[in-house]
């Protein structure tokens, strides 16, 4: 199978590194070419990495609660940078506190994210969706 490239990172002032390392390991194992920009990454770093590596998808993690603020305008920035229709996923604990998931998902979809994942999402789910969205298998 053709190797698809994913940019992976944790957005904003967020230092939660464990999920990021696990995602890196598991997505690589699943056959993806993973470009991991790590924690504490501003939107620009995701976009620059995606341009440089000609990536097929950007996977944003946000754990610490400021996800909503940190992700605002990301789709627009991608568009401006010429990353037209690049797949944008976001997951982790993307909002502050326990909130109604349907509403949260809708808010992030409205921001232009293709897929939005609740806390506790397994890596398998991410892999399955990536394969579907990237037309693999």
């Amino acid at each position, binding site marked *: 199978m053709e190797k698809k490239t994913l940019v992976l990172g944790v957005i*904003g*002032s*967020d*230092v939660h*590194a*464990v999920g990021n*390392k*696990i995602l890196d*390991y*598991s997505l690589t194992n699943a056959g993806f070419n993973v470009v991991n920009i*790590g*924690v*504490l990454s501003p939107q620009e770093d995701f976009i620059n990495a995606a341009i440089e590596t000609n990536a097929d998808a950007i996977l944003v993690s946000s754990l*610490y*609660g*400021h996800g909503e*603020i940190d992700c605002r305008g990301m789709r627009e920035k991608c568009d401006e940078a010429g990353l037209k229709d690049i797949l944008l996923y976001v997951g982790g*604990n993307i*909002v*502050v*506190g*326990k*909130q109604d998931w349907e509403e949260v998902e809708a808010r992030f979809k409205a921001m232009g994210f293709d897929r939005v994942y609740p*806390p*506790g999402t397994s890596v398998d789910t991410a892999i399955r969706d990536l394969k579907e969205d990237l037309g693999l298998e």
Partner: protein
Amino acid sequence: MELKNKRWTDEEFFKVREEVLSQWPTGKEVDLQEAVDYLKKVPEEKNFAIKLKKAKEEKRTLAQPRAGVALIDDHIELLNYLDKEGGADFLPSTIDSYTRQNRYEECEVGIDESIKAGRSMLNGFPAVNHGIKGCRKVYESVNLPVQARHGTPDSRLLAEIIHAGGWTSNEGGGISYNVPYAKAVPIEKSIRDWQYCDRLVGFYEEQGITLNREPFGPLTGTLVPPSMSNAVGIIEALLAAEQGVKNITVGYGQCGNLVQDVAAVRALEEQTEEYLAEYGYKDMVITTVFHQWMGGFPEDEARAFGVISLGSTAAALSGATKVIVKTPHEAVGIPTKEANAAGIRATKMILNMLEGQRLPDSKALQAEIEIIKAETKCILDKVFELGNGDLAVGTVKAFEQGVLDIPFAPSKYNAGKILPARDNEGCVRYLMTGNIPLSKDLLDFNRARLEERAKFEGREVGFQMTVDDIFAVGKGKLIGRPEGM
């Protein structure tokens, strides 16, 4: 100024201090003499250091939540709720993530937006922006000692403001608030900046005001082998003592095997005292803090109560002086005040029921204490060696060489060569030992324990175990066995 584990001179301190206080307008409000007078009026029961000392004497384990919101009045309401409805013994003020990165302008925006939105848009209390006045208002509006809890590599201005604000404890340290909390802050820099925070506390001690300092024991909260976190705690205690700190709470994050957890706390307390005595620090008051499970939680609240309760049990049986409380919302998001208070009540129920009870001394417990102490000593010996006897220098070199190495840490100054995994009883062991200088016996011991598990599970010792262990508690188990076991 060259990094050294040596008490800063007043000249050095006050020179740096000028720069620190100018980092944000509220810095100018800090007047040390006025602060000393203010702190002298803090009654004993609202002084963190004194309350801890008493708890230790009375052999009690006290409970503290984490909590913080953007606005002063809301924060006060939250803290008083946790006191009244939760029964907290100590109060926190969790600081927001922008303050932790010294981005006070963004805090200002967060405060404004919070006022507009009518709810906290920050994940903590921006103490620097609220300044001494804000901190004092908090301190004066509550009935318990207050501590700043954060994760700030450079916490100098924050330390100035909170202590002058009547908060009698500060969490953190040059390693523990850098390596798990930053990507690109040199160890050298954070140690120096925390020497400042410690020196500030030392200054207050010299004025007759005792303040508490608490290295952050759990580090990344994720399968950190006890000897590694104990080594870090002991280093930070020694560094703090050198700057004149007298009242130190060393910490440990629950791993999950009861015997290992109790052994770790006992080894930590005993070795900290031994090292402090060996290096000549006198009149130290050493207490311990046990953190309920710091890794991924189960989403289900009933299961989360189980995890919280097991942590409380281990804390009580270990004789830790304090326990840091998680909440039933842990896996999902910052807890409501109700969920937070519920976590405290479950915890205190167990602390109360186990008051005075300890895990009895036994061969198994002694053996585990010996292992942890021996591993810790191997690491510390090498750190001192690398620094030619200077602990601060040794620490920097130890990170460079992977002698100190924190699993899953985001810092690029951390080697990231070691990997932990659970053995067949659930104790956290070293799977990949990277460059940590364990003796052959200890290397063999770690390996043998993991081989035992591998045999039981019918698979090889390897990274998959680590991965499975990381997810295990979230999925309702301690050990990440293969599916269907």
